[in-house]
Every structure is written in C-alpha cells, then in structure tokens.
C-alpha cells in the first residue's frame, strides 16, 4: 500500500533567542575568548615554550633520562590497567542500574558519584588507612610480603577509584533513556542474554562508552592528588608523569619539568582531539535516532 503521505515541516522563520544588541554580543564573545586565551591557551603555550627554551637538543636529552622514561612508562601502565578495568566495571554497573530493578540501586548510584565529590587526596588516604603499614590490613600484608602502598598496586588502585565515575556517568543516563524494549525484543527472538548484550545493548551505547573511556583515560594519566598520597615518590619506581614533573620542578630542572609536562599536555590534547571527533560523530548519530521516535 502507498505510504507516501508525510507531513512536511512548516516553513518557520528563525527566531532570535535573545534580544541583545550586536555590541553586547561582541563584548560578551570577546570576554569569553580573552578569558580562554588567558587561562587555557597561554599556559599551554608557555609549557611548550619553556620546554624548548634551551633548544630541541636539550629537550630530547631530558627525555632520555631513565627516571623520566620510567615515569612515562609507569603512567602508561597505570592507565592501561585502570582504564579497561573501569570501562568494564563501569559498563557492568550501568547495565545493572539501567536495565534491572533491585534493592540498593540508589545507594549504588550515590557510591558511583562519590569519587567525584570527595577530594582525591582523601581517596588516596583511604588506601593508606587500609593498606599502609599502620593501616587495617597493613600487618597482614607485611606478613605476606605484599606491598601495595608506595608501590604500583597502590597507584593503580588510587587511579581506578578516582577515575571510576567517568564511564558509568556517561552510560547510565543514556541506557536509562533507552529502556529495555530492544533487549526484550531480542530475547523474544531467541537471543541469549550474552548475544543480546553484545549485539543490542553494546552497539547502542558504543559512542558514549568510547567517550567515557577517553575522559577516564585523560584523568588517569593526569591524576596527581590521590596518586601522590599513595606513591611515596620513589624516583624511577613509583613516580608517574605528574609526580615526576613536580619533582623536577622543585629541583629547578625547568627544562626537564616542562619537557615532561609538554608530553603530558600532548597526550591530553590527543585525547581532546579524539573526544571532539567522537562528539561530532556521536551527536550526528544521536540526532539520527532521535529524529523519529
């Protein structure tokens, strides 16, 4: 049968959302741009300028310092553990919260937000209280020769805690708004729970998941407070890039400090670039699915 009759959108005149004069608008935009330049752009440029002050030679020399290399390696290792962990656990938690009814759901939601609302220093101190030599589990850990605080496991744990909400926060609202109808349809068509998750739930949130992972990654590599508390600042062993930058800076090794800082900034910029690309892509797709429904 013919299904050609569609409603054409009525031609509508663009309305002005505000009534400010052109001058006011120009001033507001100028203020915003100036602010951005002063607070965001200038510092970034300064970082790269400082790093290059004594030329490219010195810059590369400071990268070949074994302690610096160790810091870069540690940061990458920590992110490589914390980010996939948080992606998987965050995905599971969001799935449970958005698709199932159970007791204690609100408590779980509040807990997920907790790392955002408390200071990272406290997040770090929690682990010291738990696993430190004087902590609750300290004696047991010492007896079994397990080192968590002032070692890589502590740094990973602190990073995981601080960066946990990024993925879950990104996914929960989206999954909740999507509801469970597509999953129910899949089950009625004979799909197993796992097949449904892989082929229905996951594709529906893939952009949001990637977006959350990127944010999580940016924070994991840049985290200072919580990591600083549990790391112990052992050069070449437990220094991540942010901690290493601080040490170099305090030793008046400005070129070294800014060299590492510029590397960290580059990683952040890369993440930002990826995020913008995704956002562009993501909004496109969201608009497409939201258009009719």
């Amino acid at each position, binding site marked *: 049968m013919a*299904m050609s009759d569609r409603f054409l959108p009525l031609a509508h005149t663009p309305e002005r959302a505000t009534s400010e004069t052109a001058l006011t608008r120009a001033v507001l935009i100028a203020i915003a741009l100036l602010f951005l330049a002063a607070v965001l752009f200038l510092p970034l440029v300064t970082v790269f300028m400082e790093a290059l002050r004594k030329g490219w030679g010195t810059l590369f020399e400071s990268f070949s310092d074994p302690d610096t290399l160790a810091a870069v390696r540690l940061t990458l290792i920590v992110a490589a553990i914390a980010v996939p962990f948080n992606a998987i656990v965050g995905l599971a938690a969001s799935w449970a919260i958005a698709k199932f009814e159970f007791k204690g759901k609100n408590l779980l939601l509040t807990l997920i937000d907790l790392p955002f609302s408390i200071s990272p220093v406290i997040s770090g101190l929690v682990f010291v209280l738990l696993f430190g030599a004087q902590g609750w589990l300290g004696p047991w850990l010492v007896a079994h020769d397990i080192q968590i605080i002032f070692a890589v496991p502590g740094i990973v744990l602190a990073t995981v805690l601080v960066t946990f909400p990024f993925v879950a926060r990104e996914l929960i609202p989206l999954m909740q708004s999507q509801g469970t*109808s597509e999953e129910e*349809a899949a089950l009625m*068509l*004979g799909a197993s729970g796992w097949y449904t998750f892989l082929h229905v739930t996951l594709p529906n949130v893939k952009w949001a998941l990637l977006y959350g992972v990127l944010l999580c990654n940016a924070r994991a590599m840049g985290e200072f407070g919580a990591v600083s508390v549990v790391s112990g600042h052992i050069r070449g062993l437990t220094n991540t890039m942010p901690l290493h930058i601080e040490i170099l800076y305090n030793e008046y090794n400005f070129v070294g400090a800014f060299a590492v800082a510029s590397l960290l900034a580059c990683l952040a910029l890369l993440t930002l670039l990826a995020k913008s690309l995704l956002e562009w892509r993501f909004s496109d797709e969201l608009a*497409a699915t939201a258009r009719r429904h």
Partner: protein
Amino acid sequence: MSVPVRVRNLEKNFGRYPALKGVSLDVEAGELVALLGPSGSGKTTLLRAIAGLEQADGGQVLFGDIDANSLSLRERRIGFVFQQYALFKHMTVFDNIAFGLRARPRSSRPSEAAIKSRVLDLLHLVQLDGLEVRYPAQLSGGQRQRVALARALAIEPRVLLLDEPFGALDARVRKDLRKWLRELHQRTGHTTLFVTHDQDEAFELADRIAILDKGCIEQVGTAAEILEHPATPFIDSFIEGIARREAQARDWTKPHVVASR
C-alpha cells in the same frame, strides 16, 4: 506448526495492585483472537505474561499441553510485536529481520545465503521490497510496524502476540493494515492474539474477541455473539458504539447520506 494457547487462572500483581485477577482464555491453533479492553485493563500485562516477559504470580500458561514455565523464551518460539515496535535502531531493516535467525546457536543457525533468501521473502510478504538497506529511523510508522512483524515472523513462531499493532498509526493506514493483516493471517495461519482498544478493529479482524476489564475477562465470543448477547452491563456500554454503527449500516438505504457525511 501452530499450537493452541491456554491461559488458566493467570494472576499478576504489581506490588499490591492486581493487574490480572485470574484470567482464563483459550486461543485455538490458527485462530485470530482480539484482546479488547479499556486502557489499564491489563491487556499488555496478559500478553507479556504469556510471552514470559513477566513472571505470573499464579495460574498457568500452556502451549499445546506443555507448561510454558518449563520452556525458555527461545523454546516458546513466540513472535512478539511490541506496542512501540522496539526495532533495533542501529541495524538496517535487513539485519533487524535476520536477527532471530543469526542469534540461533551455531548448530541450528541457517547459512547466510539461507538467511538472506528468508529475509527477502519476508520483506516481500510485508510489502517492503527494496527497503532492506534502510534504518528504522528512515521508515514511516506503518513501514516500521511491518518490519516488526516480519522480524517476529522470521523465527517461524508457533504463536504470534501483537500489542496494539496499529496503535500509533492514523486511521487510514490502520484500515489498510487491518485488511492486510487479515489476509496475512489467512495465508500463514499462526495462532494469533492481538491487543487493541479499538472496537471496530477487533470486530472486523478477529475470529473471536476477548473483552478484558480491570484484570478480568468479561466475555469471550464471536462478534455476533457479543453484539447480540452482551454478558455484562460493562460490555453493553463498551460495545454501544459498534452496535449503533452496525444498525446504521443495516438501515442504510439513502446513498445521499454518505455524501453529506
């Protein structure tokens, strides 16, 4: 292929609110039964309980003579068409319809070639030839509805459950689809239970009609039986409109009445 569905004293409570209070209903193999009732009477709940999407608090659902509780959702082989279609919006029409076949365990999964020919056959059946590359967002409401039906038919269901299949469509499209569904049912012969709150739709389409009110079945029967012998005052008032229209149709002797509406 088709099996009869027998519902015995089905009860379902949401918290302390009884949505189904002991519902019994038989749908014979190959029969088309309409489930009619006002909003909130429990139609969707009954359909979901039969499908296994909702756990009943009492009573029994039988497919043939097998207790539904002993069957997994997959084993029930129910084609369910949701009120809001629930198409997979990130998949093309083709992938939507193929989903149930591809989701089968490897041992019983058809080859891609077999899946392709089955999907194209179904697209032809629902009169959507050539639209397999579209996404659900690029379809009209009636087209989506038919994709949902084709997707449900792909698993060779033994029972079809349709929840207000035409609820979201305008009156003209509804009428077209109604006729089309009737013909489709005559050709495929699935045991079908479909929900509607539109009396005309129920009376025109169904072999038998079950009228639900406040979680209880008030009457089950053919259109003629219900129109001639309404079992309760509720049904009397519920079908009033239809009875009047039928009477008008019989008394129609002056064609100019039509022209002046």
